[in-house]
C-alpha cells in the first residue's frame, strides 16, 4: 500500500461535468490494496462512470461485505453514503436501505467469496427480488486476503500459484443472475476500461437488478500461467459480444459505425444505450439465447464479455410491492398513522 496521500493537485485542463466536478472529485481515500490490483481499476471505472453521469455524490449509497473487493468503496465517492456490512450480507443490507429510501442510487460492491460462497443465498434473493441496484462483483477467483486459496468462481482445471489444480466446478455468477431474472447482466474485465465504464454507467441508469461480473486479476495470487483469471489469459480468451456507449438526455446518438452494426436500446429513464455489435448473431434481449451462448463459449474456454442481457422495460421491487413514490423514511406521522377510521376500514375489508 501507499503511505502518502494522493496529492490534491490535478491537471489544469481537467474537464468538469454538469455539476462542475472533475473526476477527481469522485475519488475516495487512497487504496490500501496491493499494487496493480484489478479492483483499483474497477474503482477508477466507477469514479469515471459517476463523473460522466454527473451524479451527485450524496445521492449514492455504496454497500459492501467483506473482502478485498468490499474494501474498495472506501476508495471511491468519498462524499457518498457507505455501509461496510457483514461478510456476504451486502444484498440484504442494500435491500433494506433501498426499501427505506428508494431515492438513492445503490451500488452493491462484492467479491467472488462474498457473493459466490458465504453470501450466495443473499446474492440470489436480491437478484430475484429485482432490487433496483447496481451489483458489481469484483471477481478474481481467489481468496486474496487469506493468501490465495481457490474461490467458488475459480475454473475447474485452473492452477493455483503453488501449482495445485482446482478440482471443483466453478460458479458462473452471470449464468445464475440470468437464470434468476436479473434485467441487466454484463461481464467485463478490469483491464478494459473502455468496455467497463459505459457498462457501469448503463447499469446505474437501469431500473431493476443490474449485475456486472468484472474479472479482476489478483496480482499477488492469481496472475500466473495456469490461472484463468490472469491478465494474459483474460486478454487471450476475451470474447466481447458488443461495445456500449451510454447517452444520457436528449443528445442524439452519433453513430459512426457501419450501418446495421449498431443497436439502440432506450431505457425507462430515457437513457439510450448504443450497442455496437461485435458478434452479429448475439441478441442482448434474448435471455435464453444468452444463457446458451455463455455455456457454449465457456465450454471452449472463452470468456464472454459485454452487455449480455438487458430488459429496457424492467420493473423493480418497489413496483412489485406498489410502494408510494415518497421514500418510506421521509413519510411523516400523518401518512404512517392515518388514524383509527382507516384501520377500521382495513379490518372491515378483511372480515
Amino acid at each position, binding site marked *: 500500500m*501507499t503511505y*502518502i496521500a494522493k496529492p490534491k*493537485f490535478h491537471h*489544469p485542463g481537467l474537464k468538469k461535468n454538469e455539476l462542475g466536478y472533475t473526476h477527481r472529485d469522485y475519488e475516495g481515500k487512497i487504496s490500501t490494496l*496491493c499494487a*496493480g490490483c484489478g479492483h483499483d481499476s474497477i474503482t477508477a471505472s466507477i469514479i469515471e462512470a459517476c463523473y460522466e453521469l454527473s451524479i451527485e455524490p450524496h445521492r449514492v449509497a455504496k454497500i459492501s461485505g467483506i473482502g478485498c473487493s468490499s474494501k474498495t468503496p472506501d476508495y471511491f465517492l468519498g462524499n457518498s453514503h457507505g455501509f461496510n456490512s457483514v461478510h456476504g450480507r451486502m444484498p440484504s443490507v442494500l435491500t433494506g436501505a433501498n426499501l427505506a429510501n428508494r431515492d438513492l442510487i445503490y451500488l452493491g460492491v462484492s467479491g467472488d467469496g462474498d457473493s459466490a460462497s458465504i453470501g450466495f443465498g443473499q446474492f440470489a434473493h436480491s437478484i430475484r427480488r429485482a432490487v433496483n441496484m447496481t451489483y458489481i462483483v469484483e471477481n478474481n477467483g481467489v481468496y486474496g486476503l487469506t493468501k490465495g486459496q481457490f474461490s467458488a468462481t475459480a475454473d475447474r482445471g485452473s492452477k493455483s500459484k503453488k501449482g495445485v489444480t482446482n478440482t471443483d466446478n466453478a460458479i458462473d455468477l452471470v449464468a445464475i443472475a440470468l437464470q434468476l431474472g436479473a434485467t441487466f447482466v454484463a461481464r467485463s474485465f478490469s483491464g478494459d476500461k473502455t468496455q467497463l465504464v459505459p457498462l457501469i454507467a448503463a447499469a446505474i441508469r437501469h431500473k431493476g437488478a443490474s449485475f456486472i461480473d468484472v474479472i479482476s486479476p489478483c*496480482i499477488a495470487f492469481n496472475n500466473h500461467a495456469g490461472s484463468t483469471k490472469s*491478465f494474459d489469459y483474460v486478454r487471450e480468451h476475451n470474447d466481447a459480444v458488443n461495445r456500449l456507449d451510454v447517452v444520457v438526455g436528449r443528445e442524439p446518438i452519433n453513430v459512426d459505425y457501419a450501418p446495421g452494426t449498431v443497436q439502440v436500446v432506450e431505457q425507462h429513464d430515457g437513457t439510450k444505450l448504443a450497442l455496437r455489435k461485435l458478434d452479429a448473431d448475439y441478441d442482448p434481449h434474448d435471455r435464453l439465447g444468452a444463457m446458451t451462448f455463455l455455456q457454449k463459449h465457456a465450454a471452449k474456454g472463452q470468456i464472454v464479455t459485454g452487455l449480455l442481457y438487458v430488459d429496457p422495460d424492467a420493473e423493480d421491487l418497489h413496483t412489485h410491492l406498489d410502494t408510494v413514490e415518497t421514500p418510506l423514511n421521509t413519510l411523516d406521522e400523518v401518512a404512517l398513522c392515518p388514524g383509527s377510521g382507516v384501520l377500521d376500514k382495513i379490518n372491515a375489508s378483511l372480515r
Partner: protein
Amino acid sequence: MKPTDISAPDYFHKVVDCQWACPAHTPVPEYIRLIAEGRYSDAYMINWKSNVFPGILGRTCDRPCEPACRRGRVEDNPVAICRLKRVAADFKDDIKHRLPKPGPKNGKRIALVGGGPASLAVARDLAPLGYHCTVFDGDPKAGGMMRSQIPKFRLPDSVIDEETDYILNLGVEFKGGQRVDSLKQLLGENYDAIFIGSGAPRGRELDIPGRKEAAANIHIGIEWLANVSFGHVDKIGKRVIVLGGGNTAMDCCRTARRLGGESVKVIVRSGFEEMKASPWEKEDALHEDIPILNYMVPVAFKHVSGKLIGVTFQHVKAEYDAKGRRNLVPSGEADQTIPCDDVLVAVGQENAFPWIEADCGIEFDKWHMPKVDPGTFVSTNPKVFFGGDAAFGPKNIIWAVAHGHDAALSIHRMLSGEDITERPLPEVHVSSQKMGIHEWSYDNDISADKRFKVPHRDKVIALKDIRTEVELGYDLKLALGEAQRCLNCDVQTIFSAPLCIECDACVDICPMDCITFTQNGEEDDVRQRLKAPSPHHDQALYVSGDLKTGRVMVKDEDVCLHCGLCAERCPTGAWDMQKYLIDMAHAGSTCQSKARSAA
C-alpha cells in the same frame, strides 16, 4: 511516434524545466533538496560550481528558472528558487577549504577585460587549471556592474566581496583602476588568449528638447547609480522622475527614495504589463510608494534659466496591427507637464567599443556589435573571446556566467590544441531512488503550501539608509517550507515496457492524468487522445515501445508531480523513479572525449 530515447542527455534535462531554463543549467532540485536536509554548504557548492555567484544571484538573479518552474503550471506560483539560493549562501558554513586550489602554473597567460561576472567566471574556471589570469577593470574593486549598478540595499558589498574574493584567491591577478584603452596594445603583450567581458557600459541618451539646457539635473541612470555606489553622489532633489521601465529604472527610483527623493515617479512609454522590469522589482518599487505611470512618452524637458522644472509627456495608447505587433499611437489627450527637480534616464544600455582598433582582427556587424560565435564565444580574431553583455548586448548576470563557462571551455580547448567547436557532453548521473517498498530516497509527499513570502525590513527603516538591505531572506523555517514545494523534477519516471503487464494501476493513481495506454499514432493525434489532452507541444511526450496488447504507454511530462505514485502502485517495477543529475561540461571536466558539435 517513435519510442523516446531517454539516453539522450537533453531529454530528461528538458523535464527539469528550471535547470533547462537556467543559462548556466544549475541543478536546481538537487540543491533545494540539500537545503531541505539542512546541508546548506553542499547546496552552496553545487551553486558555486554552476553559477559562480550564489549569494549575489540569490538576491539579484533575473530568475529565468521561475517562470519555467513546473509548480507554476500546477498551482499559482513557482517555487522561490532564487531566494532559496540565497538561503544556501546565508546559512552555509565556511566553505573556503572546499574551493579549488590554484593549480600549478601551466605557463599560459589569459587577459580578461572587465572585472564583472563574465570575466570572473572565466577566471574561476581557468585559474585552477594553471592558467595565469589577469583581470583589468577601471574600478578599484572587482564585480563590475554587480558592484557599480546594483544598489547596496539589494546587494550589500560584503556579499560581492566574499564571492569575488573566492575567485581572486585562486591566484587570479586583479588590476583594479586600470581601464584597458587599447586592444591593440593588449594584443601586443602576447597573452595566449584575451577574454572581453567589458559589459554594456553606456546608458542610452534621451535626445529631446531641453536635454542640453537642463543637463545639470538630468542624469543617465547607470552612471548615476555607479556614482551613488562609489559615494560620489549622496543626494537628489525632492521631486524625481525616472524615465524607463526596466530593472535599472526600478533601481534608480528606489535609490532616489533613499537620497532625499520624497515624490519619486516612474514614467514609462509602454503599459505596465509589457515593462521590461521583473514583476517583483516593480512590486518592490510600488511598495516604496513609487507610482508607475504608463503610456506616457517624454517629449521635452522644461527648464527656466538653465534649471529643470519638469518634463512634458504625450499620452499614448497601444494599438495592434494585423500581425499582432504593438504600436504606440497618440491617444488624443492633451500633453501633460509633470514638475520635478531631477530626472533619471534609464531607457536602455548600449555597448561601446571605442578602445578596439580597426586593425585588431575583430569584425563588427551592422549594429556595431562584434561578430561572436554563439557556441564558442570566439570573435573573428581566434585568440579573442567575448562574453556577457559585451558579446550580445545587455542581458543579466546569469547569462554572463553562462557565457563565461563556455568561453573558458573554448579557451582551454584551444590552448590544449583541441577543436573548440567540439563541445563535451554534460555528465549525467543516474540513480534509482528506490529504498524499499514504497520508500524513496527523496521526499515524494507533495506539499500543498502556497509560495512563502520573503520577509522585508520595515519600510520606514529601510528607506532611511541606502546601505540597509531591504530583503531579510528566508529564515530556516520558511526556507524549509519553500524547499518542500519543489516537485523534484530531476527524479524521473523511468518506464520499462517489457516489465509492464498493462494493469492500469499507474493510470488510476496518477493525480495529474499524465499516463495513457493507447494505440500509437502521429504526435498531434496522440496528444488529442491522452487521458488529459496536452496542448503544450514544448513539453515532451514519453512514448514506450510496443506493449503486449499492441498499445504503447504515453506519458505527458507537462504537469507530472514526480510524486512516484505510478512506481509505488506498479506491481512489476515497470516504473522506477531515477534521479538524473546533469552537470554541464566546464573547462577541465574529466570526460572531454565524448563530444558534440557546438550549437
